[in-house]
């Protein structure tokens, strides 16, 4: 998980829910491509909805991984539902509220709400969409395939996210088990 699309975990209840925020900045390269100016329209930089799905997948993926101390390789297997209903412009903050609905040996299901806070109104979070996901524990499901011993899903970058959120004990749980 080198490609981080969340900035900070803001809420966590083990085995139940996790919330993370993402500040959208014009300094991010991809915003300039989405959408670049063309012959007819001026540039309209927006946070791509596909990357909001990824942000929810990272939030929910950490929530799922934490259940088993990050020993399982948790891989996004299915986008069960994705609906984003508002444009998110630079200066806004996105919040991903992920809930763990069900987990077993084979995988997990999560449901999630996407919220947005506009730069001129820092008090109000508005719900702008929903992303429901399925995760697979790949070592249990890919019969006949072998994967590296080390957990390539939860790499150093994601541990940094846990540490900066004050979840140091979670960040170390993989190393000590």
């Amino acid at each position, binding site marked *: 998980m080198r490609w981080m699309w969340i900035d900070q975990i803001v809420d966590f209840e083990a085995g139940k829910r996790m919330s993370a925020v993402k500040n959208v900045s014009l300094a991010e390269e991809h915003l300039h491509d989405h959408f670049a100016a063309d012959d007819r329209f001026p540039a309209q930089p927006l946070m791509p909805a596909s990357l909001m799905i990824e942000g929810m997948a990272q939030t929910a993926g950490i929530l799922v991984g934490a259940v088993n101390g990050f020993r399982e390789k948790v891989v996004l*297997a299915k986008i*069960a539902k994705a609906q984003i209903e508002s444009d998110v412009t630079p200066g806004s903050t996105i919040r991903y509220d992920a809930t763990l*609905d*069900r987990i077993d*040996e*084979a995988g997990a*299901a999560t449901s999630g709400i996407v919220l947005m806070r506009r730069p001129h109104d820092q008090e109000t979070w508005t719900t702008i969409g929903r992303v429901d996901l399925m995760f*697979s524990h790949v070592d249990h499901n890919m019969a006949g395939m072998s994967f590296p011993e080390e957990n390539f899903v939860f790499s150093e970058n994601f541990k940094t996210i846990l540490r900066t959120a004050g979840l140091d004990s979670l960040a170390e749980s993989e190393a000590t088990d």
Partner: protein
Amino acid sequence: MAMSPEEIFAHIRDVLEEALGVDEDEVTSEARLVSDLGAESIDFLDIQFRLEKTFSTDDHPFKIEQGELFPENLMDNADWVQDETFTDAGMSMLRERMPHLDLTSFESDRSLAGVADLITVQSLVAFVQGKLNSETSPA
């Protein structure tokens, strides 16, 4: 939870519409999950979780164990499948562990590849019905 086969079917149709993104009229009793409704492997876990949620009540949790609804790990036992074909022992195992599957026409086929097509909408109805009945009947 007493429920008629029609009520169970209606719930399962909702589950499959959500999990597989199919239309209501595609979900017939005979429809095969993989060949007709386009289910992939992760969809089976999704369907399992959704069935649990749909048919659980506060008094009676509806918990489906791994391998209870869909056949899994068939290659683990060499007595069940040889040359990608179910042996007599394999057929007995399917009859015993998967009573919700209709094996009538499978007796002459027996191919490992064909087992996926045994999973029909009707087999899900039979599974839920059997499980609800066993949970409500006295021990």
